[in-house]
């Protein structure tokens, strides 16, 4: 594993080391800085097998540590082992080019035992920003930015040498490390002048330049060193100057005028369904309101422009916010301590499971490594458990999706001395408040295990019950579900964990910030001490504006909305699972399995048909194959819920019409959904049902029609013909012919 450039700025030729690694049968992983690669020989040309890094400096604010998009690039040979989501080009049912997530079978929710990592949430919004930064600046703009930053560094290096400092690394891109008698005092002088330098433990000092540094500031920096800006030091050695071109795809050269860019962004936005168009009733994902007032502070400089390793006295506002929010989350969960460090629910799981391991080890029971997981669990659970070094033992569920207590007792007893933890979701993944949850926790505790609660369904608990009162020892919260951080099209997220007092000494900490987390903690799970601190103001604002009564009302209305929806749809669809009182929790599951035999219709057909009505589908085939799981949240009005139910009922009528023979079994609006504007307007309409039924199936659709931009996407085609970068335009044109 090699850093390029190094953390103190060194630019080295990595070829020999990479060759040596290969010689020894090892892979070479290079952690690289994207901006430097505009000018430096790229790791791929040096033989690297994996290149990782952060795209933060491509137009994403520092935000006291995040969120930012990490990147991961590798060789073709490893594409099936590569973690994370991969977008690829495929085609739709009409043969037109269409994009979709490629090789999805790698993902943990699809195929647990073959998952390549436990990551669910990525950083889509931030990756989109970084990609658009490249689109906006283009190859010329990026080269100018990189060369400017590099020249600033060279000028400053020249001044440093003139002032008597030694450059620790004569070859550098943007970061200088200075040694000399005066170096230790330099950081202090810089601070007084409004600059944060990095003082190294060995007495040296590092200065990393970036595109925000102005000519005046560069002059001030030279003044701090004690010499004028007169000559430029060498910087990047000749042998490491990049010769290959960058950003050659047309998209990076097409949108430099702002009008063009504005319209490109608008065009892309208009192709998508987001919450500002219609409800997104995804079960277990809690797509509630992300209020504008909650979002506004995220872009304020006082939150956006703070470096995660800035001196603590410069970040008092953040530290106060973090302390208050942590306290409030303790109130919500009933726990003693909270860590905000994990960047996603999956990372929260990982952190919580490591805390449990550390707890057992502290009691001389390091052999406890069995993690019980009910068969109904989120796919992330076993993936996290495996990553945290546990042996997964699956326990059964009864017909209603509840944990099979007898099987749990048997498995807990069988693994008595090895039992480390149980991972359980509450309310259950089937959307039910299980009556037996207390007993479940008690069984695990009696056999020496700890209870990990998956907080995905926390939106049904807040103010009514809590993980602590249920009997859990640790849980993660999804701030991007229950506490209003937007999903961002697939990230960011925050997955803090709450723990009971006995686990508090084992929360994550951070080597760069000894004041963060307990000294006895197991280490960090994120790069930054407080994870994605830059979006914590969202959850802070939400809790602050709701108060305890408001949060409790939100939970109750979420349950009401789900039960109202279940009541409206029950005459048309079998509603699976309910609690003892016949009620669901905050989501409900519709059984569509009978439609296959009745009309040849699967859940995917229903999901695609909903797009013709302008809706995003509910969660499909999870936790039960052939079903739809619907979670309306408290933020949907009765009118919007009714609109969605009307669509579902109309679709059910179409299924019935197919079964009755009124609609053709193969040529019907469900099988051909979604319908595009292009086919609706074409002279030729080849179907046995009218155009109007295809595109305006209910009156409300006509009032604000959303046109799906492509027909149903062929996933298999794309996986057989994997293309995961922008093809040249000519190829799109040829494919369309």
């Amino acid at each position: 594993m090699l850093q390029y450039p190094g953390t103190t700025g060194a630019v080295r030729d990595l070829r020999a080391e990479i060759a040596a690694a290969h010689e020894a049968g090892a892979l070479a992983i290079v952690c690289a800085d994207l901006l430097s690669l505009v000018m430096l020989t790229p790791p791929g040309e040096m033989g690297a097998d994996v290149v990782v890094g952060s795209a933060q400096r491509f137009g994403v604010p520092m935000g006291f540590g995040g969120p930012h998009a990490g990147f991961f690039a590798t060789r073709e040979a490893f594409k099936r082992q590569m973690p994370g989501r991969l977008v690829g080009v495929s085609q739709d049912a009409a043969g037109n080019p269409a994009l979709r997530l490629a090789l999805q079978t790698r993902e943990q929710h699809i195929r647990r035992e073959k998952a390549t990592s436990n990551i669910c949430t990525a950083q889509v919004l931030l990756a989109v920003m970084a990609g658009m930064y490249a689109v906006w600046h283009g190859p010329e703009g990026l080269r100018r930015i990189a060369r400017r930053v590099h020249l600033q560094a060279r000028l400053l290096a020249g001044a440093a040498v003139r002032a008597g400092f030694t450059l620790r690394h004569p070859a550098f891109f943007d970061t200088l490390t200075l040694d000399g008698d005066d170096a230790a005092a330099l950081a202090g002088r810089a601070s007084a002048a409004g600059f944060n330098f990095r003082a190294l433990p060995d007495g040296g000092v590092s200065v990393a330049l970036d595109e925000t540094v102005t000519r005046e500031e560069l002059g001030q920096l030279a003044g701090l060193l004690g010499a004028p800006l007169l000559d430029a030091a060498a910087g990047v050695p000749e042998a490491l100057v990049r010769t290959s071109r960058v950003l050659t795809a047309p998209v990076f050269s097409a949108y430099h005028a702002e009008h063009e860019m504005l319209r490109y962004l608008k065009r892309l936005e208009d192709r998508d369904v987001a919450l500002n168009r219609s409800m997104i009733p995804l079960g277990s994902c809690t797509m509630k309101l992300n209020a504008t007032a909650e979002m506004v502070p995220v872009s304020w400089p006082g939150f956006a422009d703070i470096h995660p390793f800035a001196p603590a006295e410069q970040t008092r506002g953040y530290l106060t916010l973090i302390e208050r929010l942590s306290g409030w989350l303790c109130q919500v969960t009933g726990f003693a301590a909270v860590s905000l460090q994990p960047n996603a629910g999956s990372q929260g799981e990982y952190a919580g499971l490591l805390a449990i391991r550390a707890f057992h080890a502290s009691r001389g029971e390091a052999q406890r490594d069995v993690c019980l997981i009910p068969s109904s669990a989120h796919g992330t659970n076993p993936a996290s458990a495996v990553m945290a070094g546990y042996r997964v033992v699956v326990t059964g569920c009864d017909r209603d999706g509840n944990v099979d207590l007898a099987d749990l007792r048997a498995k807990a007893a069988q693994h008595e001395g090895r039992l480390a933890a149980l991972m359980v979701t509450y309310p259950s993944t089937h959307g039910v408040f299980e009556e037996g949850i207390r007993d479940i926790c008690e069984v695990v505790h009696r056999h020496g295990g700890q209870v990990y609660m998956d907080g995905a369904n926390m939106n049904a608990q807040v103010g009514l019950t809590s993980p602590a009162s249920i009997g859990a020892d640790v849980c993660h919260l999804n701030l991007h579900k229950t506490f209003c951080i937007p999903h961002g099209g697939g990230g960011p997220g925050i997955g803090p964990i709450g723990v009971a007092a006995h686990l508090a000494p084992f929360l994550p900490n951070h080597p760069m910030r000894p004041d963060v987390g307990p000294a006895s903690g197991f280490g960090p799970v994120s790069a930054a001490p407080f994870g994605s601190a830059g979006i914590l103001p969202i959850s802070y604002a939400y809790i602050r504006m709701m108060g305890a009564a408001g949060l409790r009302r939100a939970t109750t209305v979420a349950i009401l909305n789900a039960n109202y929806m279940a009541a409206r749809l029950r005459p048309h669809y079998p509603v699976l699972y309910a609690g003892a009182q016949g009620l669901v929790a905050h989501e409900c599951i519709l059984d569509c399995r009978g439609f296959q035999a009745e009309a040849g219709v699967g859940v995917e057909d229903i999901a695609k048909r909903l797009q013709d009505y302008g809706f995003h589908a509910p969660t499909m085939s999870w936790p039960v194959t052939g079903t739809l799981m619907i979670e309306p949240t408290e933020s949907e009005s009765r009118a919007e819920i009714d609109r969605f139910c009307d669509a579902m009922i109309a679709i059910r009528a179409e299924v019935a019409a197919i079964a009755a023979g009124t609609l053709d079994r193969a040529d019907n609006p469900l099988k051909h959904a979604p319908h595009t504007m292009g086919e609706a307007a074409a002279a030729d309409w080849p179907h046995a049902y009218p155009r109007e039924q295809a595109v305006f199936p209910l009156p409300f659709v006509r009032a604000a029609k959303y046109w799906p931009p492509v027909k149903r996407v062929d996933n298999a085609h794309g996986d057989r013909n994997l293309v995961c970068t922008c093809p040249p335009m000519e190829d799109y044109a040829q494919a369309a012919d």
Partner: protein
Amino acid sequence: MDGHFDPLAELGALENADGFVSRHVAPSETEIAAMLREVGAASLDDLAAKAVPAAIRGAPDAMDLPPAADEVAVLAELRGLAGQNECKRSLIGQGYYGTHVPPVIGRNILENPGWYTAYTPYQAEIAQGRLEALLNFQTMVCDLTSMPIANASLLDEATATAEAMTMARGVGPAPADPRRAGDPRGAARRPDHGRGAGRRGGDRRRQALRRRAAIPRHHGRRP
């Protein structure tokens, strides 16, 4: 003199400190009443009592949180907190750098609900916009690193590094790559397909794309 009129209490009511609750929780009192009838509950409390098992039901005042404040007050409070952070020019590096968010991107993506409220693009047909934006990201990463394939982001640099380590462990020794030895891979493997492509014929361009995109010959089915 109206003895019943308490102007301060009246003022408090008019200030509507918990006004945000009814913005976030969408159904009105009338709608809630109608929906409660539909599901057979007398009140929201009755519904909660029916849905949540008695053994785990918490007291209504179990959470000790500050009273609700309105949007204006909370934004002012947060502005105060932001003001307690000092924006010095941080030249600390270590993976975090000052950067200018281009205003056209800040306002139209970061601050735009059309982008930030969308879900993960599993329903591809209605996610073509952000899928294209992510394809741009992947292409940019491939170009700059000179690697053939890149994913659509991971959580942060440290996690990406840990994932790389895990993957390296999983795949075992590096398989032989005929292009590796002494071949500056970028130049050989990635002919510029964009603006320079005009010099090449369509077939060669297609081959270039195919090479770059690694189309496996027998992927998914046996030959």
